[in-house]
């Protein structure tokens, strides 16, 4: 996989890597991609892709009000919160 750019894909995945990690993971992923390349030899013409074992469609339940997670429970594991909200860095200038 000559065009697999570990630095670029790790950025897409939002995973900061050290240069050593980039080198090691890049090599390992190259091997793994080489292995999964063999799927190119399978004849899939006319085959519909399968996303789930049982293609359930339009699954819904009655639209009835019911209790859900309390505000406190929803926030209790947040690393940073204030005034009943999650705190994030400034996104819009």
């Amino acid at each position, binding site marked *: 996989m000559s065009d697999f750019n570990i630095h670029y894909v790790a950025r897409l*995945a939002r995973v900061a890597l050290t240069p050593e990690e980039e080198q090691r993971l890049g090599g390992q992923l190259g091997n793994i991609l080489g292995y999964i390349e063999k799927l*190119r030899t399978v004849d899939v013409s006319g085959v519909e892709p399968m996303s789930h074992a049982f293609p359930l469609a339009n699954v819904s339940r009655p639209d009835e009000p019911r209790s859900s997670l309390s505000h406190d429970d929803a926030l209790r594991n947040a*690393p*940073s919160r204030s005034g009943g909200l999650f705190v994030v860095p400034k996104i819009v200038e």
Partner: protein
Amino acid sequence: MLHRLTISELAGRLASGHVSATDALEACLAQVDRVDGDVRAFLSIDRDDARAQARAADAELAAGGGGGMRPLLGVPIALKDVLCHRGQPVGCASKILEGYVSPYDATAVARLKAAGAVLFGRLNMDEFAMGSSTENSAYWTTLNPWDTSRIPGGSSGGCAAAVAANEAFASIGSDTGGSIRQPAALCGCVGLKPTYGRVSRYGLVAFASSLDQIGPFTKSVGDAALLMEALSGHDPLDSTSLNEPVPRYRDALGATSLKGVRLGVVKEFQLGGMDTEVDAAFRAAMRQLEALGAEVREVSLPHSDHAAATYYIIAPAEASANLARFDGVRYGRRVEGPDAFELNSRTRGSGFGPEVKRRVILGTYVLSSGYYDAYYLRAQKVRALIRRDFEHAFAHVDAIVTPTTPTPAFKVGEKASDPLQMYLSDIFTISCNLAGICGMSLPCGFTRQPRLPIGLQLLGRPLGEADLLRIAHAYEQSTPWHREVAPLG
């Protein structure tokens, strides 16, 4: 030797009042104190909480409760660290979830509570269920109770080791590509991966949503049937859960003859690469099944050679999407950064271990623009062919029988440096998840030196769990393997 009983045996003693739920729990905790320093199956145990549950069960037992709707009343069962149990930590053996406390119960946990179980402990696993040995746990490697220089399998290695070491009467794990069946085989217990949709995944931390299922680890086939009755059923909180009636699985256990049962042996799985002792145990098991009356035929799964490659596209792709939620904002670890991008990336770079990073990056790549069709879409098509292979096979047989793993438990460190070799240790278990069918592993023998368990895998039609339990129970009752106790058990 209370801790060595099966659930069925324990339930009888609880009902008759010869043993209390507190006795049963204390027997487990004492066994943990005796052996878990060597096995390291448990990440943590909230003993006060477990003792309070046992006391409540004892009060109910004293008032004549149990049986009927509460078949697990007072039975101590341990949980893989991937299932939400309200008020208890759940961390997926990852640093990114260190300190996280579940605000709610998984449906599987709620069902076990409703059946009366005493739920205790967080069992070790490969981080986010990605691995085959527990060596990817961010905390430590669990060791095999049969030989502590070896891995217990994974990802639910803690579940299998705890049951094999008699630290719990049963445990509940999850299986995305073999994570119940492979460790059950390597530790010598019974493990069942239900049909996709049979057990609700609400409250199971998601790895690969089109493949994940929750299932039990037990000491006997009968106990697996009992737990399947408790765990199975429709749940409006999981839109992939099947709205199908739950049979009384224990009714499948009566048969001693397998006359009329057609079993398939997979042509493509007999092409070398298998450990000779595993192969010999498998062949002996097939002869035993024939002796019980089953008819054995060869079946073909022509695309099985492509299952691992298909799996290592689909599972990482889904994982990359599911693990996007670990962003340093809503829960878990946070590493600050000057902007949202840096906060997300640093948090994930610091919180995820190497295997999780590999898979999230691999999954991101196969879904990325320009590569989606070549990898992900093609894998979904090969997946359809793999499922079709099973449909064709099940037109001729009631179940397919394979070894669960090509080798017995390997040494700690043996495959840790080569992820691809580790992936290929799941070669017999992966296609079951891709096809969405059910599968189980049960003990079928031991290697000689060292003495290590060997597992037999049964694969069944969608919702064919009762067929598997019937075959497995007849085999178990006619063989001695399930009565063997690990040196640390």
